[in-house]
């Protein structure tokens, strides 16, 4: 990816006393199983969200709905480096993150439509879902808030002396919130096992990175806290996986936090009603046609003859069936009962 890969570098102001800085790893080729698994995972996310977009258009989903389409390689590559018990926390662009944590498509879709079978019984909506079973700590509508929480999850890991890592996701826009830097300082001071994954999709709503950020190299944002950072081509799932392997190893071996700046792109509007006047159609089209994360894998799989067009069509059908089932459930499941108004309230 032109914007990213060439610049890939590690920036860590090391004075020799801190850990020797990690070097941005080269993407490692996937084997057949890995390619096909990544392909299927990303396709599920893509089809799931395309369906969510349709349901929104049909009026089944109301309010906010932030689609992740275009960014799928990020969660998918990171997922491939996780071990049992690792936690994930993110903002409101969260559907794919939940699917990556193996949460049920039905439960997610039904939350979008506000039904009782949704992960928050319909009361949370698109931005607010959790799963203790799957170690998914939300779904947060307030920009930047999850960064401190993710830091706390990492503290808990260290306290319990497990080998787990907190995957704390946030956007380029969120990276300007003050609490991000309070968190960075604590995480580094206390050597917490947290990977700060900055999904730099170049825009925060209608504001481009250059209009909001004095330092647009987000991998450097931890420099004054001695947190090393790596820029990663977030459109290439192999590059993400390689960086994820490095980062998880970094954290699990007790070296403290690390930042991964994922250079990525969202194809759709910020939420569902976005006039998108802040960028050109050509810019979007160029990313779609030249850097699409799913198409990249598909091309490699076909080239290596690890699957035929027909095999991939069958896979697509399988994924579409899962999504259709989730959509059907999300439209037919009843809305929560009135008695639910006052459940899960602190008294």
């Amino acid at each position, binding site marked *: 990816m032109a914007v990213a890969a060439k610049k890939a570098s590690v920036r860590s102001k090391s004075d020799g006393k801190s850990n020797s800085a990690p070097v941005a790893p080269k993407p490692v080729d996937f084997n057949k199983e890995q390619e096909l698994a990544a392909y299927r995972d990303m396709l599920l996310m893509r089809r799931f969200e395309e369906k969510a977009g349709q349901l929104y258009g049909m009026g089944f989903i109301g*309010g906010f709905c932030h689609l992740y389409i275009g960014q799928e390689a990020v969660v998918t590559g990171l997922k491939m480096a996780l071990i049992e018990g690792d936690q994930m926390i993110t903002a409101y662009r969260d559907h794919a993150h939940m699917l990556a944590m193996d949460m049920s498509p039905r439960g997610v879709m039904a939350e979008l439509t506000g039904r009782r079978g949704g992960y928050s019984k319909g*009361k949370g909506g698109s931005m607010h879902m959790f799963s203790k079973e799957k170690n998914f700590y939300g779904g947060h509508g307030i920009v930047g808030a999850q960064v401190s929480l993710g830091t706390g999850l990492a503290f808990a890991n260290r306290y319990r002396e497990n080998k787990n890592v907190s995957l704390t996701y946030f956007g380029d826009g*969120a990276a*300007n919130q*003050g609490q991000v830097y309070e968190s960075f300082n604590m995480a580094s001071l206390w050597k917490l096992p947290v990977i700060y994954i900055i999904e730099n999709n170049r825009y925060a*709503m209608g*504001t481009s990175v250059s*209009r*909001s950020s004095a330092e647009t190299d987000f991998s450097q944002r931890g420099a004054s806290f001695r947190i090393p950072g790596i820029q990663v081509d977030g459109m290439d799932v192999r590059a993400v996986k390689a960086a994820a392997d490095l980062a998880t190893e970094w954290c699990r071996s007790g070296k403290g936090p690390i930042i991964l700046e994922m250079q990525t792109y969202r194809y759709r509007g910020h939420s569902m009603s976005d006039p998108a006047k802040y960028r050109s159609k050509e810019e979007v089209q160029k990313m779609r046609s030249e850097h699409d994360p799913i198409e990249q894998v598909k091309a490699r799989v076909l080239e290596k003859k690890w699957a035929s067009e027909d095999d991939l069509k069958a896979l697509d059908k399988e994924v579409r069936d899962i999504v259709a089932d989730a959509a059907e459930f999300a439209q037919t499941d009843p809305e929560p009962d009135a008695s639910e*108004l006052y459940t899960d309230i602190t008294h």
Partner: protein
Amino acid sequence: MPRMTMIEAIRGAMDVSMDKDDDVVVFGEDVGYFGGVFRCTQGLQQKYGRTRCFDAPISELGIVGAAIGMAAYGLKPCVEVQFADYVYPAYDQIVSEAARLRYRSNGEFTCPIVIRMPTGGGIFGGQTHSQSPEALFTHVSGLKVVVPSNPHDAKGLLIASIEDPDPVIFLEPKRLYNGPFDGHHERPVTPWSKHPLGEVPEGHFTVPLGKASILREGSAVTILAYGTMVYVAEAAAEETGIDAEIIDLRTLLPLDLDTIVASVKKTGRCVVVHEATLTSGFGAELAALVQQHCFYHLEAPVARVTGWDTPYPHAQEWDYFPGPARLGLALRETMEA
């Protein structure tokens, strides 16, 4: 007189103020280039340049803190917090600095800032995009709190707020941006272009802070409302046939107690309505004041109709929202008491 939406009226107020006074600056997230997510600042950057209307990073605390410093030196920042739900990171600056500057400096410095923010539910925003945090601000001495309910007042009150020497929290009920939403979500809202209160004078005019308006005269019961709830009150009065007097408070701080007391003494009954949660809501303050000042005129206990003491749910938005049916019930009960 031209008719306009509340969005256009708010934009007009900033336009007039920027035109009149070079010290007025407008900024916030997506406010400059993009023109604001609700389009309230559209065109201002083109007209006044990037030094006077500009984008800020997603840093509410920093935005408000910087605005306070600007104001201390004599600028008049009018900042936008994209949704009221995002103001909490800035709450410390508002409470500890903005509200105290005059007092702390023995009146040497004041803090002429306006913090605009859309409030309220009704757009399926759920728990982080629907809140009405007015009581968090009315509880703080040193702040003024304004809630307009129509384009005319929005423009006049915003100009008055920008010209005010002290910090003003300017809450914009987002369900009213395009029309007088009355809680009947199942039917379309009349656009402001077809409503008399959509008529807004051109150029400079102010609606004074601290002055309520009587939206509907009546003799049976007084409804104290602000923002979206004034139209819910109108609908409830019509649907129940109860001859209610509806007071649109317009400013919560300073509060127009005279208008409230005169009305309740006349009707002998009072129902308070707001969308925010019940406990420690602004309705509690209103109820206390009414009983203190109108005790011997009251024929019934002061009733409160509010959002429930829960977060704003996504799925059960209309069960949460205190619509005309819930208010109608309270009106009947108050009449029968």
